[in-house]
């Protein structure tokens, strides 16, 4: 586990704050004077997990960098809903790159800042790059791999909502098997996205042996903040992959966003861990193990697994994938 959980105090570190905890043990999000890096008035859907994940992550990075931070942002929902010209929700220096080159733009900013610092023109300013799963795992992947391989001093944050949500929910290489998207319809013998395709970029990032790789979800704020803090304490290429449920694309009720993210973690569908220099360092253990059905059922993108007749063999294959995660990352250990 990436942080020292508070054992008790009624809710321990499960809740955002806790009136019984000393202020320094509360989360960044619990503070009255948090940065609110992405402010109200943005046009994200009701219950958007990406908007929430972005505030969690960037606020934590701002806190760690004392407000000395520049963000580069790939094209995608996060960029579109936050900055309809001339309005912006960002309360942090922020630049919109192209869809596929955010990692490269951030590398450039980091390089420029380094030069300025060497010349004595600037204090230490940190750089974050952020993008959706499409912008990260598909079109931006070349730039990202380059950034990793050169160990550029950038924290790259991928908000994974499992598809190209901004353009109408098309499949990406992060879309999970069996999920319905606009380009993997729930028709034919193998409805929804195919098994055996796609990629899990956190594992690929680990293969680059960069200083720090971590995954998180919007359901575990303390864990997410601790990972951002850890990442910001390190120099070089760092990668944080956050699972952010999308009510529109996943077909879930807007109030269920956090619950669904929690189910993804508790069923083992989405492993939450951190790694340094290619080696697994810790996992956020499953607290109350659940079958994958509990995660799949509330989502309309998996509706074809349950009606008109239950596709038990498909559910079993998804369970196998979850079980493999549990085994591979040791998600039931340390409980």
């Amino acid at each position, binding site marked *: 586990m990436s942080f020292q959980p508070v054992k008790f105090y*009624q809710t321990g570190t499960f809740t955002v704050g806790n009136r019984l905890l000393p202020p320094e043990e509360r989360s960044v*999000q619990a503070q009255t004077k948090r940065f609110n890096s992405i402010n*109200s*008035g943005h046009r994200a859907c009701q219950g958007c997990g990406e908007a929430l994940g972005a505030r969690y992550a960037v606020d934590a990075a701002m806190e760690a960098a004392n407000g000395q931070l520049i963000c580069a942002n790939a094209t995608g929902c996060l960029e579109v809903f936050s900055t309809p010209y001339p309005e912006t929700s960002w309360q942090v220096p922020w630049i919109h790159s192209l869809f596929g080159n955010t990692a490269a733009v951030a590398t450039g900013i980091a390089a420029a800042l380094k030069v300025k610092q060497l010349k004595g023109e600037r204090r230490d300013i940190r750089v974050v790059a952020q993008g959706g799963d499409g912008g990260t795992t598909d079109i931006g992947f070349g730039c990202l791999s380059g950034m990793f391989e050169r160990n550029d001093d950038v924290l790259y944050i991928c908000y994974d909502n499992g598809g190209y949500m901004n353009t109408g929910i098309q499949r990406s290489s992060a879309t999970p098997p069996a999920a319905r998207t606009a380009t993997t319809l729930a028709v034919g013998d193998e409805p929804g996205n195919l098994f055996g395709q796609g990629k899990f970029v956190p594992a690929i990032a680990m293969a680059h042996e960069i200083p720090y790789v971590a995954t998180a979800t919007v359901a575990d*704020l303390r864990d997410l903040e601790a990972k951002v803090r850890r990442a910001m304490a390190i120099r070089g290429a760092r990668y944080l992959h956050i699972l952010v449920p999308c009510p529109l694309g996943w077909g879930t009720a807007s109030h269920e966003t956090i619950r669904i993210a929690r189910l993804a973690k508790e069923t083992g569908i989405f492993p939450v861990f951190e790694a340094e220099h290619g080696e697994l360092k810790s996992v956020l253990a499953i607290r109350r193990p659940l079958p994958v059905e509990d995660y799949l059922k509330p989502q309309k993108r998996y509706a074809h697994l349950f009606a008109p007749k239950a596709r038990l063999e498909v559910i079993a294959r998804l369970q196998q994938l979850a079980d493999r995660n549990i085994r591979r990352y040791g998600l039931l250990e340390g409980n």
Partner: protein
Amino acid sequence: MDKPFAITLDPGSSLANKTGSWRTFRPVYVDRLPPCNAACPAGENIQGWLYHAESGDYEQAWRALTENNPLPAIMGRVCYHPCQGACNRQFVDSAVGINAVERFLGDEAIRHGWAFEKPGKSSGKRVLVVGAGPSGLSAAYHLARQGHAVEIHEAGPMAGGMMRFGIPKYRLPRDVIDAEVRRIVDLGVTLKLDTKVANIAEAMQAGRFDAAFLAVGAHIGKRAFIPAADATRIVDAVSVLRSMEGEEKPMLGRRVVVYGGGNTAIDVARTAKRLGAEEAIIVYRRTREKAPAHDSEIEEALQEGVMVKWLSTIKQAAEGEITIEKMALDDKGFPQPTGEFENLAADSVVLALGQDVDLGLLEGVPGLEVKDGVVQVGPNMMTGHAGIFAGGDMVPSERTVTVAVGHGKKAARHIDAWLAGASYAPPPKHEVATFDKLNPWYYSEAPLQVRPVLDIIRRQSTFEEVVQGLDENNALFEARRCLSCGNCFECDNCYGVCPDNAVIKLGPGKRFRFNYDYCKGCGICVTECPCGAIRMVPEEN
């Protein structure tokens, strides 16, 4: 235009975009009724006082508790805690040990000498309370705080009623009763001991009382006809327990048989054991499951060596021996005789078959209605005679200390209103915070803190208190197990989980407010509120 190349507009803030207009439902903060509070016969705001105890402010907790119940150290020992039976935490692991924390607070108050705030201005009205049992004491406390001049007339030599003359010392030490009674007297209540009210109308007239609250309890032991030889000692349980308070301890002999299956039977049997009886056998005509005694007390008695003959009745008593008949349950669950007999050695038989009310003082009062031996009262606790109220064991009730205390409080409120020529309407009750309203994910793992128990040897030979109290650490831990059902405890979840920053944090103790300019009505805050203190309501238009 002195803008950079290709820039035509100044950057604006998205705050210009009032996304609140998207909303079809809005979240609102609510206070729901915690199930513990809903179940408390004394109407305690349990979640409310636990809230203060959680932060270690025990005095504030005690003050919040005593708003409704002036006897926490007593309650924390003898209350059958229906609150814990209703507690939502039982669906997580096990119910909060509310009773144990209550006792801790009560003992803290005694240790530190915390006193009640003195009543404000006097109403000029005089109220007579008859009986210094829990119901009378509770009524006197509330009436005094409302500014009325209160006199308690108590027939016995000491206050406490059945708490002193019924409940044995090993469950309720007498210094605890003394301390909690003294605190009520210190409020300015006049307590007249050895003052039996023989006729209520005369007593009210003599003392120029404007109203009266009767709480004389039920003290006459019920009898059962048992054919017996002259030499057989047959006594009733209430008298035995009462004599425990006097100089001369009751003589029960070496082999004591107790007849009955209620808490009184258990208490007498356990008392007999402590007095040196080699055998204390309870004879009860139904099964353990059907016995009115609480299972925990049956268990404690069995641990101490009390024996029980379930499904048995006493047929006859001869000198030194009784005959019991075995019973069997019929289809409807009623015990029926089997014709199978057994003899038991017995030096005495103690009847613990319930108590009747001595209604002597009510003779000649017009309008009174008595049914099944108890005085009938309306929802306002008033008898059929205007100005005379009654509560506790003498009215239809479950006959517990807690119910008696609740009656006293309720009656005081109605007497207060009645004296002002008004009527008291209780505030509407909030919806109960049932378990489905909570999000239990957020509560950390925390096992119940168990109170230490006296070792068995001392339990069999002395009247030392059996169940001990929690220490500060355990009590604090236990208080913090509370889920705060239905009431905000400032965990900051709503403030954190809103994707639209539409929750305003108002600072410690001030809770939160929604910024409806930007709240889109997604409802995440409602789903992620651990304690169910937010509700979605449809927008009007």
